């Protein structure tokens, strides 16, 4: 009897997704045991020829990129002062915070000696990009925790700390934007030292700029992606007008990103590589075509932006494009020089899946118990104005009041 009560209390009705979750976590735990007791060789397909794989490419590089909604939205709301986007900022910061925690867990899986991770704090090498990424991820995760803390203070009605942290909001946001700018771009800089190894479709002195731009653009897409899923999971109203504006912003950012890519290829005189009949070319076009050009066209059509499902799929394509970009840099583009092909082992995949599943579950649990989705006051019709999320925020701002 008691057992049944416990089950009801903590597990509840077994649904399809819950079952999937438990299976994924169980398999992930098995792989984790193999990885920590028998080493990377026993659990991964990594080798001397190919020392970085799925965990660096996806769990770390993609994870950080997809968590960029936290700093982009914070900048839009608190620095550019476009308050209309306030309803989506808390979920965006929560997504980012959980994302970074998972990135750190992912790093702990990938490091050969994870118990030495704290060395980066005391054994400095300022010449190392990895050193800078380590510090930025550490500091920015702290900033995110602080940015998220008002939610916790509100829940437990702790007025004093709430007041203190709210007075520091702008400082935190500026700090967060600087730290994010640094390490989002630095994940690209990691590969600056391998000009002879990374395929010329991706190697460029502008790698850090490319990484930064794509992170900002996927930040917008991730907010749409996450809001849509939340609205379905929690049966809440979708902040559609806001998301439509974000989609417009995303279109603008994708355009900037593509123009930057074009200039970069022109500068390097590398257009020829785009048409060589290789596997890399195929992956490049999937990344750019499916993941940037198609969603840019889709989301630029007002009719599609107005349709919730189409809006969601458009944003999802942007996410797919950035995921592919990171994986192409970390894996596809590095295979040629390594003289070997790498595909992740099932254990690598299972641990990545476990981390993603834990992320979804944590988001769900926190959203259930904490005030993540603010009650939004309906905006009177007379106050409805067009908001432009673009390079000229000031103009838009003058209209907002």
């Amino acid at each position, binding site marked *: 009897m008691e057992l049944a009560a416990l089950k009801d209390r903590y597990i509840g009705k077994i649904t399809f997704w819950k079952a999937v979750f438990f299976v994924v976590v169980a398999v992930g735990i098995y792989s984790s045991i193999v990885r920590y*007791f028998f*080493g990377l060789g026993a659990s991964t397909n990594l080798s001397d020829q190919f020392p970085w794989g799925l965990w660096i490419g996806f769990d770390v590089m993609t994870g950080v990129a997809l968590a960029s909604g936290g700093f982009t939205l914070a*900048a839009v709301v608190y620095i*550019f002062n476009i308050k209309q986007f306030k309803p989506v900022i808390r979920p965006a910061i929560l997504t980012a915070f959980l994302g970074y925690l998972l990135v750190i867990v992912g790093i702990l899986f990938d490091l050969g000696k994870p118990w030495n991770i704290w060395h980066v704090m005391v054994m400095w090498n*300022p010449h190392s990009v990895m050193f800078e990424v380590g510090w930025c991820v550490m500091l920015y995760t702290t900033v995110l925790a602080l940015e998220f803390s008002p939610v916790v203070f509100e829940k437990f009605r702790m007025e004093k700390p709430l007041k203190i942290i709210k007075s520091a909001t702008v400082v935190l946001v500026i700090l967060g934007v*600087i730290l994010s700018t640094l390490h989002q771009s630095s994940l690209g*800089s990691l590969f600056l*030292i391998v000009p002879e190894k990374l395929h010329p479709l991706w190697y460029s002195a502008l790698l850090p700029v490319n990484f930064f731009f794509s992170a900002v653009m996927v930040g917008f897409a991730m907010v749409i992606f996450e809001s849509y899923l939340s609205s379905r999971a929690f049966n809440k109203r979708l902040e559609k007008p806001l998301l439509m504006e974000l989609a417009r912003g995303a279109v603008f950012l994708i355009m900037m990103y593509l123009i930057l890519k074009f200039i970069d290829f022109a500068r390097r005189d590398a257009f020829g590589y785009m048409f060589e009949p290789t596997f890399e070319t195929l992956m490049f076009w999937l990344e750019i075509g499916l993941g940037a050009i198609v969603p840019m066209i889709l989301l630029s059509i007002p009719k599609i932006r107005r349709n919730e499902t189409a809006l969601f799929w458009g944003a999802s394509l942007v996410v797919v494009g950035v995921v592919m970009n990171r994986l192409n840099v970390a894996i596809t583009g590095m295979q040629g020089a390594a003289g070997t092909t790498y595909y992740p082992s099932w254990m690598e995949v299972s641990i990545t899946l476990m981390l993603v599943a834990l992320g979804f579950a944590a988001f769900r649990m926190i959203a259930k118990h904490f005030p993540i989705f603010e009650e939004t006051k309906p905006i009177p019709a007379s106050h409805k104005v067009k908001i432009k999320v673009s390079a000229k925020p000031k103009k838009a701002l003058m209209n907002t009041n």
Partner: protein
Amino acid sequence: MSYGLLFDTTKCIGCEGCMYACREQNGLPDNTEHKLSAQNYTVVKSKDDVYYRQMCMHCEDPACASACPVAALQKTEEGPVVYDANACMGCRYCMVACPFNVPKYEWGSANPVVSKCVMCYDRLKEGEIPACADACPTGATIFGKREDLLKEAHQRLEDNPDTYYQHVYGEHEAGGTSVLYLSSVPFPDLGFEMGGYYKQAFPEYTWKVMKEIPNIVAFGGIFMFGLWWIINRRMELEDEVVPMHENGKEDK
């Protein structure tokens, strides 16, 4: 005082004495892998009739040392690039960064370390020469001060112009290396990369960007704070109740 090694393919007979000496010196197991690995810090390879060694090049400005986030890899004053396994956290960025693909990893271990030649740094400190140079019966691998070795190498090129491909590999490659090569055949035939990206030290590719970080922090901070202040101030002013409406519209 920077030391180095000079290897000459015209003198190498492929006896693999250096490989055995290296294994003994570093306590590595006998094996038949015949490639650089956690068990082989050096290996003798052949291309047609030409024998050549593979080992850490001990760059003057090493990519691995610049990449390592915890400074576990260091270029010493004496020349060797050494590794501190206790500092290492196992990110393997050194392996990715090395332009010669030298650092290898103990994939089978649950407490793995990076392995590579350290030019017998311990022997050097005791006044001995590296085990491989000591073991070489033909003088194909010789040890000495880098500048002396360079002079010797150029002397050999000059004395026997027909025997050698006219290039001292490692003099300028990747910003210069402590290990130098002479070859009877063109280096690219042996798989040695020349020119292109190898014309400069690899850490420079990164440093161009890394050195801008303090500027980004300073200007970014000031710029964003200024932006926030201006926008915020404007909105405050707009909110203020102005008795006369210059624009003629009603206040909301």
